[in-house]
């Protein structure tokens, strides 16, 4: 019981740093809400310039959903995956490892804090995007949508926790790996065009990235008949797979974290800084 309480406190404390840290500099509103919308706008206008009118609303809805979910991907890559590496550089990692808590709590704290602040950015993107570009969403099943969103986030942040564990070992090389993964995932997750366009098998492979299935399901639930025509799998099946991915990523993350911690302690690399 004591142990659980301690770990929960650790989760809360680490999430607090994220939320307070982000909100403490007022400039975050401009930088994390208004300006990123411009990237989304650019892709909106690609379709405005090229797409036939009958499918344009569905495509714009996809771009806006993609833009909102992209915020989570960026947060997972930069705020989760890389964070243990940054904690190491800052000198905090030792203190986390020395504390009588599971390291998973620290990752969970980061994830919850990151989810909270990123959700604000994502909601803003959807609302502003819908208003500014006059896009209508056809909300079919709020419950399914809620479930898809939740399971996408949990599996995505599970993946982030796995990244964090792996990056703990590889330091600076990992930072660059994250950098390298940024754009290819934009392509493979179907942020801005239906992933099925790349062929069923590539889409299936891409489904290991939780965003792919999440974005596909959200588009089916919000983007009308054109989105359904290009859908990958039925929504319920996608929810099921996402739930499975959550469990798998989470378990792998815990395992990887323990393994990396043991290896690092054996090799004495935990406190090595790559300055």
């Amino acid at each position, binding site marked *: 019981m004591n142990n659980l309480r301690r770990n929960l406190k650790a989760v809360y404390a680490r999430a607090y*740093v*994220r939320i*307070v*840290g*982000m909100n*403490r*500099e007022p*400039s*975050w509103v*401009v*930088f*994390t809400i*208004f*300006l*990123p*919308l*411009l*990237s989304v*706008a*650019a*892709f909106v*206008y*690609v*379709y*405005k*310039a*090229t*797409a036939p009118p009958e499918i344009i609303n569905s*495509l714009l809805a996809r771009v806006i959903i993609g833009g909102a979910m992209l915020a989570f991907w960026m947060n997972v890559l*930069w705020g989760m995956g890389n964070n243990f590496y*940054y904690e190491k*550089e*800052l000198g905090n990692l030792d203190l986390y490892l020395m504390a009588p808590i599971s390291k998973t709590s620290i990752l969970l704290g980061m994830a919850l804090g990151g989810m909270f602040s990123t959700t604000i950015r994502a909601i803003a993107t959807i609302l502003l995007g819908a208003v500014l570009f006059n896009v209508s969403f056809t909300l079919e099943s709020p419950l399914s949508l809620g479930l898809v969103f939740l399971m996408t986030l949990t599996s995505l942040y599970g993946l982030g926790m796995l990244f964090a564990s792996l990056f703990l070992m590889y330091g*600076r*090389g990992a*930072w*660059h790996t994250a*950098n*390298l993964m*940024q*754009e*290819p995932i*934009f*392509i493979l997750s179907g*942020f*801005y*065009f*239906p992933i099925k*366009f*790349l062929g069923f098998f590539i889409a299936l492979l891409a489904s290991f990235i939780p965003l792919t299935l999440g974005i596909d399901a959200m588009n089916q639930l919000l983007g009308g008949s054109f989105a359904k025509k290009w859908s990958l799998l039925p929504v319920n099946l996608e929810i099921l797979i996402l739930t499975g991915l959550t469990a798998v990523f989470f378990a792998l993350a815990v395992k990887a974290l323990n393994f990396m911690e043991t290896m690092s302690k054996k090799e004495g690399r935990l406190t090595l800084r*790559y*300055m």
Partner: protein
Amino acid sequence: MSILKTIKYSAWLGWEMDSNWTDPFLFFLYSIVRPIAGTFLVVLMYWFIKAPEDLFSLMFIGSIFYMYIFNVLFGVSWVIQEDREHYKVLKYIFIAPSNIYLYLLGRALSKTIVTTIAVLITGVFGVAFLGVKISLTNPLLFLLTLALGLTGIAAFGIIMAGVSLLTARHNFFIGESLAGLFYFFCGVIFPLSVLPSWGQIIGKMLPMTYWLEATRRALLGFGDPSLSDMPDIKILILLVAFAIGFFFISILSFKFCSNLAKKKGILDMTTWY
């Protein structure tokens, strides 16, 4: 230390800092995968929608030359963040006898060289496999445009570096956001005429729009139809003004920002969370 020496050493330092985590081949691969993937994303959108060939070529050239805007402009402003909070050497660079402005210029140079390689590779890929027809109708216009544009972009990067001296970690988003701003308003991946009229006005006020237009004209023989009433010479004059103007503004603004940072005592702040 002479001006050239400072720039040379800073460029070398930039290369070392960017690439010392891996062997040169991997770094090379890394440097080109990301921008190529960025371009390919738009390529796939155009393919998906079966857009006309000319529009595709305009988008392709805009997209690959936009790499300079993203890498050099964002890269130079990121130098401040990285040197201040990660390597914690910013204060030592400030107290060194060499000029910090030249140091940043050197760092911009190393990023420009790496980006040029990525631009070349993506360009060759586009011509070989994606059906982009480069005619290079006006090599002189191309070279002049490239030189003027890169000067202006590096200077812009230094202006943003100055701003970074005063801002927290959100600077990460400044780069992303500014990149988004230019991506949107400069008609990088779609013709300007698609934008609402107010957007077109903003786009036509941004020097990067004309830089991309001149590059397209020089390489493809045609440009964005909505800018067709601008003769080449007028665009060149604009680019000269952009390069010289931003160069001087960058010197003054960086000086102002660094003085302000010193006054506020935030030259070596850390804002990670």
